[in-house]
């Protein structure tokens, strides 16, 4: 079973298209292999590119000589950072987040220093990939190897090797005098912390560690670029955001954004990792130098070593609770690894750490710290999973100490409408309580778990979701269908979920909408496919485009019926006028071409109320006490999903997020040696869960419509990754009596604890 049916509200029952499960519009191309991905792109005269990457985690580049590579027959161009324009410390606003352009440029091609193994240094374009790779080997480079610093706590030490001589800590708003690896220290506070802990009957305090993990998208990064003789650049690539890729490429190359066109290819996963650019500027400069189109495709090892994973972290939680089970105070300290350049998601982690609860007195300190690892990037609810692992494990321990039911404790302290988060804002209507109740009432929870070394755990999680800008354009065809053009690259079935909102508004079938994702020259500005925003914001743009079509059809019908437009209205897929006149959408579409201008709907949206999302997960595990291996026996995830536009895709998002969270919890980690070399940079060694490892993830869709959207949509894609590691840790404790406070809870680490416990017990 994948879905546990949950009662629909009156509000969600009224729809005809929304809530159904039509076949996705791009389904045939995907299952027949005809869909074109970035590496499938072929252009006449196209060259293959290869990159030189640093074998060291931290080193100064003493000299770089590309002359031999340039002379190799078949080589057409070699580029280094000297071929990129000088970027200042200017910070570019990318819609979702911002980026320091100097850091971004140095990350694309290193200048005088390499900051992590795999850091790109130079690139070659040649007749084929073999010549390009051979030429890379001919580049002479001399390094001054420096000691790397690979862990956040080591990097925070005063005598730690420094990554950047000019990085000085922003210490609660004051810039420090001396350089440091700590880019920023910030704080949230509310209430009276001291009084809150004084009122507590039980205080639990622990430190937690999480490992660096990768999004693990199947398709590697790629870019094919043509720098035309007229100065215009076209980039074909796999990206979560064509417009942000266009802006980053233009800013790094110092060309106007109108000179860059980004064409989205199909995307084989992203999860936040395909927002930042790595290859497009390099491919573009290679194209400019060679006069030919150039394609760059990363290997899996390149992806692991040189693209943004999510950070490792250290988190300390102190929680105080009175005898009645009320949380009286909470204190958190979070230090996140930013990788080679500042910008970890510690801000979001700090905002999320206490976000599921009403905590009157709280303080949270956050630290953004650079280390000799690849620059981190977003990964589903960035920063929140780390924080939830720590907080939800402490909550479980508190419940045990006070002998409180974990469900009742959560219900008693749950954030509700009106609760003020520690970072300040007050919640609007949210569904945290409903997700806990859904788990409490589900068959999984009601069924006792029996058997040796088995345990059950639960955890909750929160993510903000975002709105941002989207554009949609819809053209009415004479056969009664609608061509829908949009700028949101489709990662999780959003062609369908956006088309369904257009169809619902027009009162037509989802199959009568033909959605197309287009390039940056062919649609208005659209922010990234990320932050769980596309079904919410681009769906809103499609809704507006449909309303625009309705208005035009009303005007047209009034013209046809020779009456005032105020006497005509659009309802239920038809235009209704005086004297019983009626035209269905299809009838009007057929008449449109002979009665006036084409009917084209336009929608541009910048919605401000995305509505946060909550999830509560329940897991049963069995621990093999001889090996430390954890087997997931059963898993149920309940989530406040707003209105589920296409329930199958909502379930898919929850299942996918939960599986990634399980991988993060049980197995995944960047494993480095002392020199800073990742020792598991292939899928053989970087252990992600597969279908063989897991049972079906059951989902409960709790529909609490978002009042900030015409159809009540909330983002659903990120929050399901937040609870799994904590739920697993709590289940492992039930099974073994061992509290795991470090991720991943992999067999060697868990076995170590099991053996340690046995030794302590004298077994």
């Amino acid at each position, binding site marked *: 079973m994948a879905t546990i049916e949950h009662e629909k509200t009156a509000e969600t029952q009224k729809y005809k298209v929304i809530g159904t499960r039509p076949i996705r519009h791009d389904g045939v191309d995907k299952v027949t292999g005809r869909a074109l991905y970035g590496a499938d792109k072929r252009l006449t005269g196209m060259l293959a590119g290869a990159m030189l990457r640093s074998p060291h985690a931290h080193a100064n580049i003493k000299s770089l000589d590309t002359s031999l590579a340039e002379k190799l027959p078949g080589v057409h161009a070699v580029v280094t950072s000297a071929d990129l324009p000088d970027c200042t410390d200017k*910070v570019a606003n990318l819609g979702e*987040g*911002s980026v320091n352009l100097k850091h971004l440029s140095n990350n694309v091609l290193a200048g005088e220093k390499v900051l992590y193994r795999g850091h790109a240094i130079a690139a070659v374009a040649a007749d084929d990939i073999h010549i390009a790779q051979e030429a890379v080997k001919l580049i002479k480079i001399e390094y001054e190897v420096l000691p790397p610093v690979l862990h956040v706590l080591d990097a925070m030490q005063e005598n730690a090797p420094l990554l950047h001589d000019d990085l000085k800590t922003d210490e609660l708003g004051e810039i420090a005098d001396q350089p440091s690896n700590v880019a920023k220290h910030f704080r*949230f506070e509310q209430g009276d912390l001291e009084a809150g802990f004084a009122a507590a009957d039980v205080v639990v305090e622990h430190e937690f560690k999480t490992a660096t993990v990768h999004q693990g998208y199947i398709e590697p990064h790629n870019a094919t670029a043509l720098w035309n003789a007229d100065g215009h650049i076209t980039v074909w690539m796999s990206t979560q955001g064509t417009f942000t890729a266009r802006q980053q490429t233009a800013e790094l190359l110092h060309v106007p954004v109108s000179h860059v066109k980004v064409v989205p290819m199909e995307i084989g996963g992203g999860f936040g990792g395909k927002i930042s650019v790595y290859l497009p500027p390099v491919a573009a400069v290679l194209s400019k130098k060679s006069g030919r189109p150039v394609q760059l495709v990363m290997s899996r090892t390149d992806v692991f070593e040189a693209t943004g994973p999510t950070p490792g972290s250290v988190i300390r939680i102190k929680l105080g609770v009175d005898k009645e089970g009320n949380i009286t105070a909470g204190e958190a300290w979070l230090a996140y690894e930013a990788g080679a350049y500042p910008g970890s998601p510690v*801000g*979001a982690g700090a905002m999320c750490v206490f976000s599921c609860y009403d905590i009157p007195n709280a303080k949270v300190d956050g630290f953004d710290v650079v280390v000799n690892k690849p620059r981190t990037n*977003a990964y589903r609810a960035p920063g929140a999973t780390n924080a939830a692992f720590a907080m939800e494990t402490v909550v479980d321990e508190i419940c045990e100490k006070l002998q409180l039911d974990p469900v009742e404790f959560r219900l008693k302290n749950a954030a509700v409408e009106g609760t003020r988060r520690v970072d*300040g804002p007050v*919640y609007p209507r949210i569904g945290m309580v409903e997700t806990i109740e859904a788990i409490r009432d589900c068959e999984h929870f009601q069924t006792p778990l029996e058997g040796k070394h088995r345990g059950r755990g639960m955890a909750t999680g929160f993510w903000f979701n*975002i709105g941002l800008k989207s554009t949609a354009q819809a053209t009415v065809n004479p056969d009664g269908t609608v061509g829908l053009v949009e700028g949101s690259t489709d990662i999780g079935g959003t062609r369908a979920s956006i088309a369904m909102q257009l169809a619902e508004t027009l009162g037509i079938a989802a199959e009568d909408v033909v959605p197309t994702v287009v390039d940056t020259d062919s649609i208005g500005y659209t922010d990234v496919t990320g932050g769980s925003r596309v079904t919410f914001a681009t769906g809103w743009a499609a809704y507006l485009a449909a309303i625009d079509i309705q208005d035009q059809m009303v005007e047209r019908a009034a013209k046809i019926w020779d009456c005032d437009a105020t006497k005509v209205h659009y309802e239920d897929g038809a235009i209704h006028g005086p004297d019983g006149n009626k035209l269905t959408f299809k009838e009007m579409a057929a008449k449109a071409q002979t009665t006036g201008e084409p009917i084209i709907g336009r929608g541009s949206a910048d919605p401000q109320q995305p509505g946060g999302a909550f999830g509560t997960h329940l897991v049963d595990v069995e621990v093999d006490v001889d090996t430390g291996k954890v087997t997931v026996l059963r898993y149920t995830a309940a989530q406040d999903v707003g209105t589920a536009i296409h329930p199958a895709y909502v379930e898919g998002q929850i299942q996918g997020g939960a599986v990634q969270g399980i991988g993060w919890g049980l197995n995944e980690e960047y494993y480095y040696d002392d020199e800073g070399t990742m020792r598991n940079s292939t899928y053989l060694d970087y252990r992600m869960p597969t279908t063989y490892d897991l049972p079906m993830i059951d989902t409960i869709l709790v529909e609490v419509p978002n009042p900030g959207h015409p159809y009540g949509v909330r983002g659903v894609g990120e929050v399901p990754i937040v609870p799994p590691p904590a739920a697993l840790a709590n289940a492992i404790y039930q099974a073994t009596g061992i509290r795991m406070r470090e991720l991943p809870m992999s067999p060697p680490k868990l076995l170590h604890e099991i053996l340690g416990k046995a030794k302590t017990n004298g077994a």
Partner: protein
Amino acid sequence: MPTVFIPASLRQLADDHDRVELDAANVRDAIDELEQRFPGIAERLVPDGALRPGLAIAVDGNISSLGLLQKLGPESELHFLPAVGGG
């Protein structure tokens, strides 16, 4: 009047207030008012006249993309938060 919440890192500039009520119609007005009462605070929020990179404005719990132009109602709450990027 709208309530402006002072980030913990700026409270030393604001006589340790964690929130103040200001007569302001939008975020720009609110920051101008803050600067009048607590000189130096605007430089920390809007250096060079634009919102500091990495900072986001939340009004009544929602992140605003309108920045300094975001309107404030008489009961509005204004927060300055770390900008959050999603995946």
